[in-house]
């Protein structure tokens, strides 16, 4: 009888042990640039407190971005970004839930750089839209870095640009993501 118990417990431990390897960061970087061509000032912000989790086994990946974490060169721009455009009090977080489409190509155990295609849903300003982009995953001595650039149309997320500032703020924003991830224990 004791053997049976041992067996069951052991298999249970194994089952939990077979959790896929996951990687995470809380200090990922997201840059956005909505400068209109010919604008005298740069409309760009950076967020260095992005949370990201990647599941190496399934290729699932998720991002969480606190909108108030975006920093701008000009304080007024930061205020307008939060107050008038993304309405951070109403919609404090942007989230991406997606999947690395060709995850089987990436061998997380070996050093190397892989070009991947990421598909998923980006939720921002209360709106959810499908996003697809190419990115790079670099493995170096057990650490994973992920980087991607893509464009979003601000009107897709119901972020309106008033006519007065149309010469400065572009209708679409270029988003650059770069994260270095560490193995998630536990």
């Amino acid at each position, binding site marked *: 009888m004791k053997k049976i118990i041992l067996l069951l417990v052991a298999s*249970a431990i194994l089952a939990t042990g077979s*959790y896929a390897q996951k990687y995470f960061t809380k200090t990922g970087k997201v840059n956005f640039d909505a400068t209109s061509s010919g604008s005298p000032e740069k409309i760009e912000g950076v967020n260095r407190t992005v949370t990201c989790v990647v*599941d190496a086994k399934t290729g699932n990946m*998720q991002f969480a971005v606190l909108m108030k974490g975006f920093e*701008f*060169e000009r304080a*007024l721009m930061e205020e307008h970004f939060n107050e008038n455009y993304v309405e951070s009090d109403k919609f404090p977080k942007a*989230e991406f839930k997606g999947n690395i489409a060709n995850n089987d190509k990436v061998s997380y155990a070996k050093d190397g750089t892989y070009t991947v295609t990421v598909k998923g849903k980006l939720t921002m300003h209360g709106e959810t839209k499908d996003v697809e982009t190419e990115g790079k995953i670099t493995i170096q001595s057990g650490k994973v870095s992920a980087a991607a650039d893509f464009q979003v149309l601000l009107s897709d997320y119901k972020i309106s640009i008033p006519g*007065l500032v149309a010469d400065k703020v572009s209708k679409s924003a270029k988003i650059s993501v770069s994260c270095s991830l560490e193995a998630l224990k536990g």
Partner: protein
Amino acid sequence: MNKKNQLLRIAIVLTGILYVESLRAQEEDLLKLLGEEKPKKEIVKNAFKSPRVINGHSMEFLRPGTMDFRILHRFGQLDQGYDNFFGLDQASMRMGFDFGILKNLMVGFGRSTYRKELDGYIKYAPFLQSTGKGAFPFTIALVSGMTMDGLPWADPTRKNFFTSRLAYYFQTIIGRKITEGLTLQLMPTMVHKNLVQLASESNNIYSVGVGGRLRLSRRVSLTCDYFHVYNRPKDSEYQDPLSVGFDIETGGHVFQLHFSNSTGMNERAFITETTGRWDKTEIRFGFNLSRVFQIKKKKTKEK
């Protein structure tokens, strides 16, 4: 029932739970693995669009490293009719520069055409309204200011002292952004004049002000401020200043358009020397134009 059976049962149940957990892990919310973020202490911003409600100081501070260039206009009384184009033919103005030093410290100075008066102030908040851990429900700000009359002496034949030109004001602002759209504040204020016009007037003038903002849309809000003076002589011609207006934000500028019964644009002038009466339409149209410049740029780029 024997002991072994019981143990077995417990083991099976435990194993089952662990299996289910491990299966669920495949589709779980990956972000939840990192645990819930604790809400951080966060200072409530944008209680007002600018550091002034209309005439009075607001609970809002300029961001550190910025300068607010303000041009204030007050026109003549509306009841003057078409002859003076409802007051627009006459204008009184104040030009001011305000500087944000810390998130809770700012200074400013300005000069008004009314009495050729120079004024300056320092505004400091020991407490800022915040949310999250260790939140504080109100902003409490202290303002201390000074004004200097620039008119020639009324009677140059008598002995005049420079200090007679000076007046001081001390104000406490207790304000709260109640909801995203509504902000209210209370401003107990004391104005001290070194020289008063009449013997019946007190050198110390005590008043309490209220101010508020109601957001009508993302860029337009309704604002109001009012001061009630407590120790005015009974026969005084002066009135309590009441101003009602709109804040319109255009991206780089804030326009404050309003109607007010006061001409003065500093605390001494509008609290103690407002003559117009709302009930006699002795009110004036006025506007404040505010343009914020970034003096010290924030570093967002990594070295």
